[in-house]
Each structure stands twice: as structure tokens, then as C-alpha cells.
């Protein structure tokens, strides 16, 4: 590792001033991504501003009934928090499906959002990579693409964002609270991460020196259900090939059924779907959402809706399987959330559960 200076910030504004004032400075939270990158030579900050002791480690209710998650709350604590488990199970499940306990004890809310891609060429400093070294080319385009994007990629970068937590937060319409040198601002999680376009070196809209202080989850209407499903090469301790976060509310059943014959399926009042492992950012499947709103909760509708999204997919030579995997996982998660009879569908359920086990 290259030598660097280390200091602990005494307050959020002091941390911001320290990093904003030095183009070669970086915030340090749990270090599970940044320290790795410094060892690999991917990052070489000259000054680390440790923010892990700042008072940003609280989980608090908001006035409207939502939850504010401090930027330095460890992933373990966030996943275990009773209000998160009770109101936002999708988030708890996503966190528990990521990394492993020893890492989640160190990793933080802010650091998790800003973790960088696991593209093997990005991590290998001997190969060209536009994200690590803008203008050098993309090794993945000529290389092994099993783990790369099928949606929203560009000719400059086909990497995917690796976070599970962020996918759940995208489905929850979370907002990222940011403190910068000239004040604070808040950005919807969906607009926080970027598509690569011709600037793959920029993962997010965050500017140098801007500090994430919290992520805010809006309240969910009564009766909302949510779930996270992650599909990976082994049942634990692996990044997602594909993951699905779904947040959904069914309409109250009406009294018009005459009682004879099979009851008509309930209608979907509201649904939000976010996909992981498929794009440079958590991918909100807005075409699928639109196709589902107001529709009866049947497997056929689920399939048509996700197909409306996947018609925009552009798979790479080694990852066409992700299209099928997304389709089947989405259908399976929706079926589970809506209580649609498994036997009537017959679709495969390729997903593994949320727990990590060796």
C-alpha cells in the first residue's frame, strides 16, 4: 500500500471540509472495500478521513412514519433492527444475503452504497478498464462476461453494481441524504447510481467531498409486503448473478364475488420491482411495474410484465442465461408475495434463500 495520512474527523462538516479541500483525500468507513482497493492498487488516496466514529450511527423514525438510517450504521445492526425487520423485510433480507457476518459487522450503510463493481478486469490493475483508467478500453467486452450487465450498459463499460442493500433500497424509494461543502441535498436512490454512458469512472452522482449522512426510507402503506431473492453460483457468500427486490400491495378484495366458482384473483394496487446483478445501478423495472399496476395477480400477468422489461435486455456472449433467470426469479417472487398457487404455474424456482451458509 502507498503511504497515506490518516485522521479521524470530529464532525460531519469537518470531514467534508477535509476531503473537499484535497482532491487526493477519501472518506473511510468500514474499510472493507476501500482498504482492499488500496492493497490492490485500484485506489491510492493520500489522505484518509475516518468517519466511522461520527454520530451518524443511529436508526431513527422520521416524522411521517419512515426510518432514517445513519450512514455509519453497521450492516449487521441495520439487518437486525426490529423496525427494519418488521416494516422493511426486503432490506433486512438483502443485507443478510450479502457478504458474511464478519464483513457486515464492519461494513456501513454509506460504504455499501458506494462499493465498487466486482468486474474482474476492474480489480486486475494489469488489464485495461475504462472505469479504473478512463480511456484505456474495456477488457470485459473482449473477455468473460458471465457476471456482467444485460440492461443499460454502454460500449465503454458493461459492469454491474454489486450491492444487495442498494437493490432493496431502490424498491423502497429510499432517499440519500448528502452533506457537501455548500450545504446539504437529498437524492432519490434511483437517481443516485449512474448508468455508465461514456463516463464509467463515475458510479454515482456524488461529487468529491460530499458525505452521505443517512438513507431515508419513506413509510409504506398498511398491508404492503416485500421480499428479496438472490440467485448466485453457490448458496452463500457470493455476489448476485441476479437478484430481485419486490415491494407490493394488493387491493382489498371486493364483495362482488357471488361466492360460486373460483374467487377472482386480487388486483395489484401498487408494486415496485428492483433488479440486481443486471446493470451498472440497481435497476428499477418500471416497464414491468407499469404493466402490473391494477392488474389481477396471476402468473400470466407476472410473465407478461417482466417480458415487457426484458425486451430491452442486451445480453453479452456469456450471460444470456440472466434473461431467463430474471424472468423466473421475478415470477417466483411475485407468486410468493401474492400467494399465487405454486402448483398452477410450474415455473422453476432457481433462487436460493436469503441466508448465508457455507
Amino acid at each position, binding site marked *: 500500500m502507498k*503511504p*497515506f495520512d*490518516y485522521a479521524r474527523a470530529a464532525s460531519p462538516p469537518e470531514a467534508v471540509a477535509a476531503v473537499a479541500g484535497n482532491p487526493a483525500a477519501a472518506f473511510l468507513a468500514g474499510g*472493507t472495500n476501500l*482498504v482492499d482497493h488500496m492493497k490492490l492498487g485500484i485506489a491510492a488516496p493520500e489522505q484518509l478521513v475516518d468517519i466511522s466514529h461520527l454520530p451518524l450511527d443511529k436508526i431513527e423514525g422520521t416524522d411521517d412514519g419512515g426510518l432514517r438510517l445513519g450512514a455509519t450504521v453497521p450492516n449487521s445492526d441495520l439487518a437486525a433492527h426490529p423496525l427494519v425487520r418488521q416494516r422493511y423485510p426486503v432490506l433486512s433480507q438483502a443485507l443478510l444475503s450479502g457478504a*458474511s*457476518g*464478519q464483513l457486515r459487522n464492519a461494513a456501513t450503510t454509506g460504504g455499501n452504497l458506494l462499493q465498487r463493481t466486482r468486474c474482474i478486469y476492474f480489480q486486475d490493475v494489469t488489464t485495461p478498464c475504462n472505469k479504473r483508467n478512463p480511456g484505456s478500453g474495456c477488457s470485459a467486452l473482449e473477455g468473460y462476461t458471465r457476471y456482467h450487465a444485460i440492461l443499460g450498459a454502454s460500449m465503454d463499460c458493461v459492469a454491474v453494481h454489486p450491492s444487495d442493500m442498494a437493490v432493496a433500497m431502490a424498491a423502497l424509494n429510499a432517499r440519500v441524504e448528502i452533506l457537501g461543502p455548500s450545504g446539504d441535498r437529498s437524492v432519490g436512490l434511483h437517481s443516485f447510481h449512474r448508468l455508465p454512458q461514456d463516463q464509467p469512472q463515475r458510479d454515482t452522482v456524488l461529487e468529491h467531498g460530499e458525505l452521505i449522512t443517512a438513507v431515508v426510507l419513506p413509510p409504506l402503506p398498511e398491508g404492503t409486503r416485500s421480499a428479496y431473492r438472490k440467485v448466485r453460483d453457490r448458496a452463500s457468500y457470493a455476489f448476485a448473478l441476479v437478484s430481485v427486490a419486490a415491494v407490493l400491495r394488493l387491493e382489498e378484495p371486493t364483495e362482488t364475488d357471488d361466492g360460486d366458482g373460483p374467487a377472482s384473483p386480487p388486483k395489484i394496487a401498487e408494486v415496485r420491482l428492483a433488479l440486481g446483478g443486471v446493470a451498472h445501478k440497481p435497476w428499477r423495472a418500471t416497464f414491468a411495474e407499469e404493466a402490473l399496476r391494477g392488474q389481477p395477480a396471476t402468473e400470466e400477468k407476472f410473465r407478461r410484465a417482466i417480458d415487457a422489461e426484458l425486451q430491452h435486455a442486451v445480453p453479452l456472449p456469456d450471460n444470456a442465461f440472466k434473461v431467463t433467470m430474471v424472468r423466473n426469479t421475478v415470477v417466483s417472487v411475485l407468486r410468493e408475495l401474492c400467494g399465487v398457487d405454486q402448483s398452477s404455474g410450474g415455473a422453476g424456482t432457481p433462487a436460493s434463500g436469503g441466508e448465508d*451458509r457455507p
Partner: protein
Amino acid sequence: MQISMSVNGNEVTRDIEPRVLLVHFIREELGLTGTHWGCDTSNCGTCVVLMDGQPVKSCTVLAAMADGHEIRTVEGLASNGALDPVQQGFMEEHGLQCGFCTPGMMLTARALLDKNPHPDDGEIRQAISGQICRCTGYATIVRSVQWAANHPVGSAATGDAADPSEAEEVTA
């Protein structure tokens, strides 16, 4: 820069470079070589130590980040010459073969049992997920932790077999 922390209950203060990793600080500065160093990329888990009671991978923690914190390593498991039940369990149930993963496994087991004295096998497997053992196939590790759960500190069955020379073997 100068840092101070408590390691196995002893206050230590050292002058270090900010880039020194906690695992190297423990092994080289403090000479506590029970903590192993393997992949150096937070993957294998052999470097796990407890920081404020929680298992963390010490190869991705800077020693500077641990300033002011409490660290416990495998050398801090035995007390007054008596093995921790976890150590005893690894002996009784053959929880190790080459021993490379063992220090990290035992510390995670200790932290688990402190939180959850009677875990089921699934909970044990979940706790040690992220720590790789290439020898045992994990089954004997799970049994070792169960042995420790069934013989908590202070119970008659622990300690009586605690021969300090065996302790050396398990923790070295």
C-alpha cells in the same frame, strides 16, 4: 502516528505508520502470531479477531481504525491456564486438521455463543460463513461449537482436561 488499544485485556500503545493493517500490527508489533494471515483480501477469514466483541477480518482493518477499541485474539481465549470451552470443543470433536482456519473459527464461535448460548447447527454455519476451511468439511467444526455450547464456562466438564501444553498446540 501513535495508537493505543486494549488487546486481550492489556493496554498497548505503539507508534505506527497509518498503512499498517491490524493483522500485521497484532502479529508483528505485538508478536501474537496466533492470528493468521491468508488471502489478504477479506475472503478467507483466517485473520478474524474480535473488535469490541464482534468478529471482523483484521486484514481489511487498519491498525489506526482500531485505536481506542478492544481487540481479542485467539491468545485471549484461555484464561488462567484453563482453555475456553470453544478450544476444548475443537479438541474433543476434531474441529481442526491443519489448524490454519482455527483461530478465526474459534473467535467467531466465541462471539456467537456470547450472543446465542444455544445455537442450532444452521446458526453456527451461518456465523462461520465467510471463513473458509479446506480440511474439515465444516461438520466437525459445527460439532466442536456444539460441544462448547453444551459445556459452558464454569461447568464441571470444562477445564479439567486443560493441560497448558495442549493449549499451546491449539492456539499456536
